[in-house]
């Protein structure tokens, strides 16, 4: 059973990479973001662009000197997020959020958001498929 599961996991992984990237790359990440510039951002949500082709989450980050810096984080499409149980209701203005991602090549304060955590420790956009979203595969 273990071996079968491992094979299936690899299969899914390869499928997601081999099938999803060409179809999914309606833009190319490497054109915009730098694989050598990972970034950790902690801040509060100031604005949401809940739009296609990508949701953008704007975050105020407090710098050591106390000043504020605004970052724009690229997320998935509203439709995919909806199917994961995520709507903009979950990220009201002022929500504290921690983001791990890759920053933009051009040095601007933009990043491709990969993992996001809320202040209560909940991992948003990440982790088990069992988020209870309407479309998640049943366990």
């Amino acid at each position: 059973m273990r071996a079968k599961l491992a094979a299936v996991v690899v299969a899914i992984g390869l499928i997601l990479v081999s099938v999803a990237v060409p179809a999914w790359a309606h833009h190319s990440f490497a054109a915009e973001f730098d694989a050598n510039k990972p970034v950790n951002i902690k801040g509060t949500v100031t604005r949401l662009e809940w739009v296609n082709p990508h949701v953008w989450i704007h975050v105020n980050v407090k710098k050591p000197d106390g000043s504020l810096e605004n970052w724009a984080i690229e997320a998935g499409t509203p439709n995919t997020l909806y199917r994961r149980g995520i709507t903009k209701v979950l990220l009201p203005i002022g929500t504290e959020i921690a983001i791990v991602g890759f920053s933009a090549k051009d040095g601007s304060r933009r990043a491709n958001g990969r993992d996001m955590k809320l202040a209560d420790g909940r991992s948003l956009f990440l982790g088990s498929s069992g988020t209870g979203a309407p479309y998640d595969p049943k366990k």
Partner: protein
Amino acid sequence: MTMKYRFLVLTGAFILVAALALVSLVAQAPAEKNAAKTNGATSWTPPRTPWGDPDLQGIWNATWRTPTQRPRRGEPAVVTDEEDAAEAIDELVKGYDAPLKQGDVGTYNAFWREWGTVLKGRTELIVDSPDGRIPPMTKEAQAREARYPRQRGEGGGGGDRDSNTRGPEDRSLRERCLSWDAQPYTGHGGFPRIVQAPGYVVITILRIHEARIIPLDGRPHLPKSVQQLNGDQRGHWEGDTLVVETTNFTDKKSYDGARENLTLLERFTRVDPNTINYEVTITDPTTWVRPWKMAFPFRNAAREFGPDGAEAGITEYACHEGNHALTGALSGARADDKAGLTKKSASNAR
């Protein structure tokens, strides 16, 4: 043929036809319960529009995790069972809790991807190929595509710095919010919305919200000199099946290497309230050594997402207005120029 022999043959044929009719009549009642099973041959009758056409209207979900073509020998098998798929996803997304892999911007969180569901019992969407794969390209097509610079966003994105983007023309039509794929229902295109009017069927998809307007009045195709981003559609009914032929594509768009000589022949058959069986035959003798065919169902999206779901899951795709990614790609390319990282290659601008 002698008279007597002819009589026997005709009588035999008559008996055979009568027997078949009787069998199909008897089979009709239980077959209705299993109408979804047979591709294109069903005893469930779709409701009619007020003007009498079969009603295919609604928002349909055509996303499937099952790939277009079978993996090559030696590559891992495709999951064909829903239960295994759910477990596999759980295992996969656990892995995404791991730290970012520096140097690999393609580690885009699986959360963002359209997982779709597994097309039960199927290892690929292609149905007519002995090896389950897209047929080989002709030598002509290989030479043509080698000369034809592939736009950066046409597959393979995420591997390198993806530079030498001189301008928007070096990005794919998808990235520029201009046009989706020629065959739009696989991958992320997959939420067709079908609307009907007397003499027309219109199909829009989620991404870039292009509308394919299909006249049913038998008018001829446009002249070959007129090329359109989504080709030129002509439709007719064969029984309860909508048959659509699309020609007049443009070379500005590539469908796996096929361009202006591409022809699509599609069949849409609603086999139960929640399923449309879809087939597409893809032909381009200047690109592939033979035509190839995919078949997969469309699912009723409203039913999947709940009473409000079909609208809540299908948001407006006002693509240009939200397209920060394109300006990001352009300024990223200029940053690469400054850093001396730009790779030289042919421009796609024409």
